[in-house]
């Protein structure tokens, strides 16, 4: 498994989310870019959970918590 490529993809998603987040004036566009950033964090969590901790799966649980937080944040915004 070339997991470094997955990490590169998640770094790309993070930086492009920040690039969209900083100059955006509308609320909806900022929300979309925030979802991109949270998704990159989730990709990192799931990758390291698959790599280092395939028995315990704690990274999966943290990513589920992040998904719930993102749902609450999108419901408010």
């Amino acid at each position: 498994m070339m997991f470094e490529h997955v990490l590169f993809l998640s770094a790309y998603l993070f930086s492009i989310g920040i690039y969209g987040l900083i100059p955006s004036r509308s609320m909806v566009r900022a929300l979309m870019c925030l979802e991109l950033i949270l998704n990159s964090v989730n990709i990192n969590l799931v990758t390291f959970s698959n790599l280092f901790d395939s028995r315990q799966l704690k990274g999966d649980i943290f990513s589920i918590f992040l998904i719930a937080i993102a749902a609450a944040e999108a419901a408010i915004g």
Partner: protein
Amino acid sequence: MDLTGPIHDILVVFLGLVLILGGLGVVLFTNPIYSAFSLGLVLVCVSLFYILLNSYFVAAAQLLIYVGAINVLIIFAVMFMKGSEYSNDLHLWTVGDGVTSLVCTSILFSLISTISDTSWYGIIWTTKSNHIIEQDLISNVQQIGIHLSTDFFLPFELISIVLLVALIGAITMARQN
């Protein structure tokens, strides 16, 4: 998913290309409805990545919550916006955009250099060596359920309280208008 080598690589390359193009589309489309749909494409590809990384429960949760709830909510919000609200949002290249793109490319390249400098295989070797190889008696979903109901019980309940507070806050903010 434990696929054989070439099929796995082809899938990773294809999904990565779709992710790169979709991420560019989210940021660079001037019409927000197009960027919302390309955000949906990105989320579907991320969930396919989770299937490739052997975590099926997170993939299903991603499909259900992100694509089914959050993306639909964003598309509704875009459709309720007035037409004048996003027509004046034309993308002019200003100084702030230049500074932002500079900052973001520097973040990207510093992250990439850090990732490629780190010796991952040493870390994998040290974690694998003191790892007791056990039989997979129960599946991943059962393990996630066991963790959620034993040692992650308090965060789980806190998440439900956060969701409840968010719902009540959204309702009160909507009733004031």
